[in-house]
């Protein structure tokens, strides 16, 4: 990912007190904040801040699939584009799809294919866009977690949300949710995504080596972490819709209407009392 030629090859990742460099315990996640419905133009959207990661996800659809020959008469396509902004990493990332982002797009779309009710929307496509604004290891998990919230926000029918978290091995210790240093200098990284309700695994990758026992441990840790993330995802969705709901119930009946409901758009013609109107 980064040019690490000029950086020292070895790095102590676990401190004497057993904590990690950023002070976390082995099974501790970085702070995560999720917000749903952040984009006006998309059908559904979400923004996630996960440690140093900042990722935006947008969902469109179901919409007519293009090009036409890709349409499946029996089910919807689930398409995903994972993209890293040039400024998301310390050295400028060359813009555009590369081997890595094509692969991540593929595995993420396959993960969502497993939960979306595709049969309900034949010949359409559900398009997921994941934009990494700032990267600090674990962006595919952050992107997937955000995209899942965005899908729910778009009203796409699905079996469950998908939550995702990586775990890995640093200095011989199995830890959850590696950060950039731990990812670069650690021994293994193993991102996975699960469907929390059933425990199905919809994404599982590994970089580096883990023994069978270590792998079991890593999986257990990831599953524990995804359950915590699942709660955060659900909170984000509830917040998005209950603010509208609760606020309204409080200030209910004769509210003096907001002078201009749509703020961030250029003044729409229908709010203009001028004669040019239509």
């Amino acid at each position: 990912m980064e040019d690490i030629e000029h950086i020292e090859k070895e790095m102590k990742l676990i401190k004497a007190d057993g904590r990690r460099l950023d002070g976390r315990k082995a099974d501790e996640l970085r702070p995560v904040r999720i917000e749903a419905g952040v984009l006006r133009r998309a059908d559904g959207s979400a923004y996630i801040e996960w440690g140093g990661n900042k990722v935006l996800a947008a969902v469109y659809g179901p919409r007519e699939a293009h090009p036409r020959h890709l349409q499946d008469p029996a089910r919807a396509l689930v398409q995903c584009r994972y993209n890293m902004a040039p400024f998301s990493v310390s050295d400028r990332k060359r813009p555009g799809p590369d081997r890595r982002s094509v692969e991540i797009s593929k595995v993420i779309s396959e993960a969502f294919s497993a939960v979306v009710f595709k049969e309900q929307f034949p010949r359409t496509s559900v398009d997921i866009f994941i934009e990494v604004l700032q990267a600090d290891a674990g962006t595919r998990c952050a992107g997937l977690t955000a995209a899942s919230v965005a899908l729910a926000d778009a009203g796409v029918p699905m079996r469950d949300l998908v939550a995702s978290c990586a775990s890995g091995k640093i200095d011989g210790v199995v830890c959850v949710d590696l950060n950039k240093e731990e990812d670069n200098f650690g021994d293994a990284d193993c991102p996975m995504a699960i469907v929390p309700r059933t425990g199905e695994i919809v994404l599982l990758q590994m970089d580096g080596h883990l023994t069978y026992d270590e792998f079991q441990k890593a999986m257990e840790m990831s599953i524990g972490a995804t359950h915590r993330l699942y709660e955060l995802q659900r909170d984000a969705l509830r917040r998005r819709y209950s603010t509208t709901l609760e606020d309204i119930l409080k200030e209910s009946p004769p509210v003096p209407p907001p002078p201009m409901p749509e703020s961030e758009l250029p003044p729409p013609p229908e709010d203009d009392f001028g004669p040019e109107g239509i």
Partner: protein
Amino acid sequence: MQSSGALRPIVIPGEAVGGPGLKPGPGTYSEGGRVFAAQLGIRNEQDGLVSVIPLSGRYIPQRGDAVIGEVTDLGASHWLVDINSPYPAPLHATESPWRVEFGDTARYLKVGDVIMAHVLSVDEIKRVQLTMQEHEARRLNGGMVMEISPTKVPRVIGKQGSMISVIKDLTHCQIYVGQNGRIWLDGNDRDTAIAARAIRLIEERAQASGLTEAVRELIEGAQRETRGPRPS
């Protein structure tokens, strides 16, 4: 505050919404005898049928729906209509209210024309056909079209059309609401603008109780405000 069903809980995909004995309705699915939400929405139970009323989502055509569409293409014996859904909707010449000669479709509807039509049929692979044989179907001349989220259409219409008739009565606008989230309004400029604002209010606050009153306030307030120097 007339609170009917104070806080209706929001359900999230994957959340259990019913045990055995309940039938899965729209927006839900069953697995292992239990019912789960498939969509983000509000849980609704009626006669042993659980459903989730979605809070967002695209318009999926259903037979009988009244829709407002825009003509996007002409064929020798049909028009292609955009009805704000993932599926293209053809309107065949025989389903139009006119006697159309083969190849003469352009005389009746041109690209860009807006029509009020009904969904004649939707098959299992979602091939849609429109009809203009119903009595309210027509070409919509003048006026303006606005788009709202299709999931908010029932609120704009209200129970037995209560909401929409309030707006129509107060603004003296002619309004058609399509199930596909498109609304056509016609009246003088000032009233159309007020009606459009009222509809935006409903869309934004679809879950509020006492919404009809809030809408009435908004319209009456806006009319008082703008009464003085009348434009046009």
